[in-house]
């Protein structure tokens, strides 16, 4: 997805001279072409996230379209108030593209983990959150909304599904419903391969389409790549009475290191784990 990030932003900058890219001292080499082509609109802004986001708001006040890219915990958790007040409350447009959500930086430890970003951002009215599961989903989502005058968070992942999907019902089933977000999809499809359950996929984390849940089982399992329970409120609000069970990152510090796959195992987020938990909840 990082290669797509560079490609998408560069294309957008070529087509729209209002776009200004701010890098939190990451991705500088990857964006070297952007630095060459647009020296007045690309900045390695440094490691000062709070000022960077307010600065981005100042750019937006003056009619520019800021794109800020850095690591998830430093963008969201350190600078949450700047996102809330300067963009949410002021009603300004901006694009915030993170990497390192949940435990993508598994070997760097808890200071670099960020399973709570989406839950935190969902407290900001008007903040949209995209959780693309494929590079082309990011490209489409970014190009659709980058200039819409609203704040949007794009949560890029180190992992990608094999195929690009649109939001919606991917497969039918009658005994239960699995709602899955972003890069969890391939594991869910593997887990549910022979189960009689509907699978509904979402790239956008803060907008739930109730129509998709009207004619499916109200035994619902949510599979989310961030803290478990992050999407439960939205889904409960959309469907009303339902049994909802969440499978996501456990709400505890993951104090071990290792690979992303080893953290998946520890968090119960492998395809086998997910299958067992879906079968237990839906009783299929």
């Amino acid at each position, binding site marked *: 997805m990082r290669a797509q990030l560079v490609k998408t932003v560069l294309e957008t900058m070529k087509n729209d001279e209002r776009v200004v890219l701010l890098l939190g001292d990451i991705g500088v080499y990857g964006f070297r072409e952007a630095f060459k082509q647009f020296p007045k609109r690309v900045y390695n802004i440094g490691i000062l996230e*709070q000022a960077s986001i307010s600065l981005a708001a*100042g*750019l937006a*006040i*003056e009619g520019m379209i800021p794109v800020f890219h850095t690591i998830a915990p430093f963008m969201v958790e350190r600078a949450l108030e700047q996102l809330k007040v300067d963009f949410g409350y*002021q009603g300004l447009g901006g694009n915030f593209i993170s990497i390192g959500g949940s435990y993508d930086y598994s070997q760097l430890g808890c200071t670099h983990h960020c399973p709570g970003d989406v839950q935190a951002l969902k407290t900001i009215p008007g903040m949209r959150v995209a959780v693309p599961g494929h590079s082309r989903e990011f490209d489409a989502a970014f190009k659709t909304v980058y200039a819409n005058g609203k704040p949007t968070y794009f949560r890029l992942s180190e992992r990608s599904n094999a195929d690009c999907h649109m939001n919606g019902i991917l497969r039918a089933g009658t005994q239960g419903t699995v709602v899955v977000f972003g890069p969890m999809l391939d594991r869910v499809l593997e887990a549910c391969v022979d189960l009689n359950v509907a699978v509904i996929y979402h790239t956008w984390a803060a907008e739930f389409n109730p129509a998709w849940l009207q004619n499916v089982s109200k035994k619902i399992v949510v599979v989310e790549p961030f803290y478990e329970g992050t999407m439960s409120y939205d889904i409960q609000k959309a469907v009303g009475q339902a049994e909802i069970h969440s499978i996501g990152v456990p709400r505890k510090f993951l104090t071990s290191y290792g690979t992303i796959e080893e953290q998946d195992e520890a968090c119960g987020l492998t395809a086998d784990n997910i299958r067992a938990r879906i079968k237990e909840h839906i009783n299929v």
Partner: protein
Amino acid sequence: MGGGHIPSALSILDIVWALYDKVLQAEDRFILSKGHGCLALYAVLEKKGIISPGQSYGKKDSILGGHPDRNKVPGVLASTGSLGHGLPMAVGMALAKKIKGESGRVYCLVGDGECNEGSIWESCLLAAHHKLDNLFVIADYNHSTDRAVNLELLTEKFSSFGFSAACVSGHSHLDIYNALDYRPARPVAVVAVTVKGFGCARMALPEWHHRHPNEAELAEILQELS
């Protein structure tokens, strides 16, 4: 209770008046980063005809409240109140002017207590690094938060962050004009020494920070101010 910060407004009233009366040009911008001083801004905006006279304050449907709202108040460019947000926004506005090749300056008024915030100094790093000579920061130095963190040599602090810095009386319009009539090739900081609650002796006391006078006190204060 808690409806506004009159002493903070009196601290900055001369600065805001000086800006709107003689300094600000059509292409310039002003951000009141210490948003709790907004009563001074409202008074000046009304005097200059930018907002209509007789506005209510702090009522449910008022456009004027305890902190300025850019989506309600004409002439207010940033919704401030949470300290440490206005200056980095001003830096972004100054940078945007550079990117677009536009003339004009961005003025930003911060409080000395606000200078406790790390984002103020983050902003100063950015402004100096990007040589934003169109940015003018005015720091209201009324010493009201010395009891928490004494900033001591504030002018030198701005200088050490790469600003062209000067210290003036924040109640002398002439000093303020002169300090801002300056065009170095780097951002400017004017440390404006002020008195909290200027013109009203009792309001220098901490207990008045966001207290409203009762009717008898108001009569006495108006007498004192006149």
